[in-house]
């Protein structure tokens, strides 16, 4: 019981600090974004579980040999006025902290959901009045704006993909298709649920390195996953052009197209890829998270690397499973055996 709490505390610290930093610096997530995504979820879940578990186990140590016995003992004190003398100050402190942290996490998750939903509803209301339906399929609307903008607003059956006039004017049909496939991939793969969970996780514990790194990594991994879906039907050059034109903004989309048309044959044939990928990453390292995302997306498209071998991916996924199974087992199994 005592050692369990120490082990869980160490696990919580390792998952809160060194592991996310190492993972955020690793190069392989760009090669197998799905596997990396699963790993980030396992780290966040196992981290939260071991944080709360460590405090709970420590606090209950004097009144039970295992978690279940301890919780029964605690229920006796809270509900039936059993004597509480067994618990010292630090035990009570740990138990209160565990309860507060749990409540804080759940509350933040719900609050974030409510806030996101309210903003989406308002956004949808305005879209219903301002945007006109597009020819590019149901759930796609066009808004009157000069900047090249494309985004999707998730909402179950009312999900909508929004394109701007500026985007329609700047992109060729194939590029537009790539954008639409990319956005629809976000919707069909339910990326908004991941974004919600990790936004709440960061909101709840903003000072923890893992929450910021995890959110940034997830934001960039979902873009890579959506890019991969687009690449199934559209060519790499098309997708890169679409990204570059949208990223370069309203100023001079026409000029950029001329430059791109000249440069891309070379780029996609691998003639000028050296230095571009490196430059893309170093050039953007000072920017915000999403800026890095765009650079890493482009460099990933320009100099693609093989996905991780299946055996390595299996090892990572097994590691994810262990990450979740070990704290859960430590918390529950002793109670079942005893």
């Amino acid at each position: 019981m005592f050692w369990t709490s120490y082990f869980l505390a160490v696990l919580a610290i390792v998952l809160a600090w060194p592991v996310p930093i190492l993972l955020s610096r690793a190069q392989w997530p760009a090669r197998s974004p799905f596997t990396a995504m699963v790993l980030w979820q396992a780290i966040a879940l196992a981290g939260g579980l071991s944080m709360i578990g460590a405090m709970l186990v420590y606090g209950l140590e004097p009144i039970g040999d295992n978690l279940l016995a301890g919780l029964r003992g605690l229920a006796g004190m809270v509900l039936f006025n059993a004597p509480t003398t067994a618990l010292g100050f630090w035990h009570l402190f740990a138990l209160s902290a565990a309860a507060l942290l749990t409540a804080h996490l759940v509350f933040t998750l719900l609050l974030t959901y409510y806030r996101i939903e309210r903003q989406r509803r308002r956004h949808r209301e305005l879209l219903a009045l301002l945007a006109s339906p597009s020819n590019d399929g149901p759930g796609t609307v066009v808004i009157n704006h000069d900047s090249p903008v494309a985004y999707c607003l998730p909402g179950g059956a009312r999900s909508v993909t929004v394109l701007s006039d500026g985007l329609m004017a700047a992109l060729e049909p194939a590029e537009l298709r790539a954008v639409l496939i990319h956005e629809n991939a976000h919707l069909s793969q339910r990326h908004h649920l991941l974004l919600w969970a990790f936004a709440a996780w960061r909101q709840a514990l903003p000072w923890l390195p893992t929450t910021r790194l995890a959110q940034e990594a997830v934001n960039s991994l979902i873009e890579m996953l959506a890019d991969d879906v687009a690449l199934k039907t559209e060519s790499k050059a098309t997708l890169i052009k679409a990204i570059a034109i949208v990223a370069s903004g309203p100023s001079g989309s026409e000029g950029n197209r001329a430059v791109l048309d000249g440069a891309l044959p070379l780029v996609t044939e691998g003639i000028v890829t050296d230095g571009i990928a490196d430059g893309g990453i170093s050039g953007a390292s000072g920017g915000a998270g999403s800026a890095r995302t765009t650079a890493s997306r482009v460099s990933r498209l320009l100099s693609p690397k093989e996905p991780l071998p299946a055996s390595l991916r299996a090892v990572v996924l097994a590691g994810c499973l262990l990450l979740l199974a070990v704290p859960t087992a430590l918390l529950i199994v002793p109670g079942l055996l005893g």
Partner: protein
Amino acid sequence: MATLGELERAVMDLLWAGQEAATANTLRDLLALSTQAQGGTAGHEGKDLAVTTVLTVLSRLEKKGLVERERGMRPHRYQAVSSRADHTAELMHEVLGSAPDREAVLARFIGSVTESEAETLRKLLGHS
């Protein structure tokens, strides 16, 4: 019968196009005119649209903060709170701005790109 959503849209279009505040009666007549101009499908035209329906639509729009009523005058006269362009700008600000939850609210094809980053991109792709 047009849905409330379609009517809201039609009413806002009228209020945005017109310069002055309008009463529900005026709006009803204008809506009837515009459906007739479009060939007036069955159940859609003329007197079928009750003033009470228009008032319902207006009060929904008022609740959404899109329409305001001139007080102290009967019948009430309604006008748009801000122009169509302002509302579009509001939407785009939400999309392009850096509100804390923005990344979770909607997924953009390209996230915010800093000026130096856009410059790098241009250079990278223009470099040959």
